[in-house]
């Protein structure tokens, strides 16, 4: 069974539209939704959670439509944790304990201690990192099988980001656990994800296993003349520099004589977006 299955999702706004997006997150996997600001990542996540209604398309979580029962198994962290500003950890705990049927108080306590979150201070006095950690502690304290995270690391310092990535890695040690995470900080997702989906201007550019992408694509530095001789379909993206051109290529489609260097997901994404924007 798939953790998340999206078919032909369409949502139109005045100045933006998400067009016919289909995406499948297999159970036990981590998928990273990568896209620049306004690419449609939050629209996808809000549609999955029922925060917005799609114009058309079908979304299933564990083979069912999103409902209150299904949400018992989902831990969610949005880019802004919408807990009441006046509440302290004790009150947040009481509300959550009475909301989730499988709430684990001891797990929540452990996370609060691990994150050094003050129990009596108001949520509004928390830093962005502390707020995010509170949201993650809630998401991980009710035996969720699926985590849906919308930009959980944006605006955080590198140390906190790294901590969060470690926690998410721990969560996925259980093979039945899945994560759908969106971010424009590609390096975080590169550390974490099995699958990568690129979103750009409301459409899905690619959705593939991360390792396959890293195997398939490579990076070359050459001259414009030599690049022109290559099969056009081999070139994914090109950037001109003082000394020539840099390009992302499909390894299988270029002669073996080329010195092809490994790429990062971030480079692949940037080159693809720039190529698309041309």
């Amino acid at each position: 069974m798939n953790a998340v299955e999206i078919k032909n999702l369409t949502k139109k706004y005045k100045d933006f539209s998400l067009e016919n997006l289909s995406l499948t997150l297999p159970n036990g996997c981590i998928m990273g939704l990568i896209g620049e600001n306004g690419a449609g990542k939050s629209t996808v996540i809000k549609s999955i959670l029922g925060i917005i209604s799609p114009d058309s398309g079908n979304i299933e979580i564990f083979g069912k439509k999103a409902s209150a029962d299904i949400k018992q198994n989902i831990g969610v962290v949005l880019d802004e944790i919408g807990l009441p500003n006046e509440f302290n950890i004790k009150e947040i705990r009481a509300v959550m304990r009475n909301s989730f049927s499988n709430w684990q108080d001891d797990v929540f306590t452990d996370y609060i201690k691990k994150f050094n979150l003050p129990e009596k201070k108001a949520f509004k006095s928390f830093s962005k990192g502390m707020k995010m950690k509170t949201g993650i502690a809630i998401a991980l304290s009710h035996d969720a099988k699926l985590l849906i995270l919308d930009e959980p690391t944006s605006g955080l310092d590198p140390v906190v980001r790294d901590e969060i990535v470690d926690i998410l890695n721990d969560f996925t040690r259980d093979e039945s656990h899945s994560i759908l995470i969106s971010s424009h900080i590609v390096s975080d997702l590169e550390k974490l994800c099995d699958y990568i989906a690129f979103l750009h201007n409301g459409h899905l550019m690619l959705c593939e296993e991360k390792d396959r992408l890293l195997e398939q694509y490579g990076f070359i530095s050459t001259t414009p003349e030599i690049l022109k001789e290559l099969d056009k379909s081999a070139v994914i993206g090109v950037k001109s520099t003082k000394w020539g051109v840099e390009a992302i290529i499909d390894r299988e489609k270029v002669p073996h004589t080329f010195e092809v260097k490994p790429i990062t997901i971030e480079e692949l994404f940037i080159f693809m977006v720039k190529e698309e924007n041309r």
Partner: protein
Amino acid sequence: MKGLLLKELFMIRKTWISITIFIATFGCMGIFGGEPNMMLMISIFISIWSISFLSFDDVSKWRQYSLTLPYGRKTIVSSKYLAVLLFDIISDVLVLCCYMISVCLKIIDFSADELVLLMFLSVVGGVIYPVLTLPLYYRFSSEKARMFIMVAGGIVGGTSTFFMKLPFMNMDIIINNAEIAMFIILASVVIFFILSWLLSVKIYEKRDL
């Protein structure tokens, strides 16, 4: 729904100092001034107060976050209406206590008719504002809803003066048939409460947040 109701109670607890001062002020004015009408301010104030938390929800983005919790939209709306009823009952008990204290202190004479009327007005006064405001809140933001309700309040106030002057609006008839009038008003409030709840559910189920 228990978690959502608990959240509402915590919200009111956070502002207990202001609420206590207000209740004490109008309670004392009612008790020692021998003015039961003043006691009604408690019900009206608590109902307005409980709805004012909606703007806090907007600021904290609780509306979006609550949809990530295991609750349907209908449950979220229903919990708000249930909280309104709960706060109405609390304020009715407070009004009753104030009246009885005033009687015990022999500031006012006990009158069963007066007490029934007072409790009736307290029950009705405690739900009128939320019943009118909640559907607007679920349609718009809390700020816009408040603006609409102020405009609506002005229109109702202005037109009611006009209607009271119409020949068939004879106050003597209403006073002489107080029990029937109270029954009609109470039944209307119950119907409006249910309609307001259904409308809010319908609006909120379609709304993108």
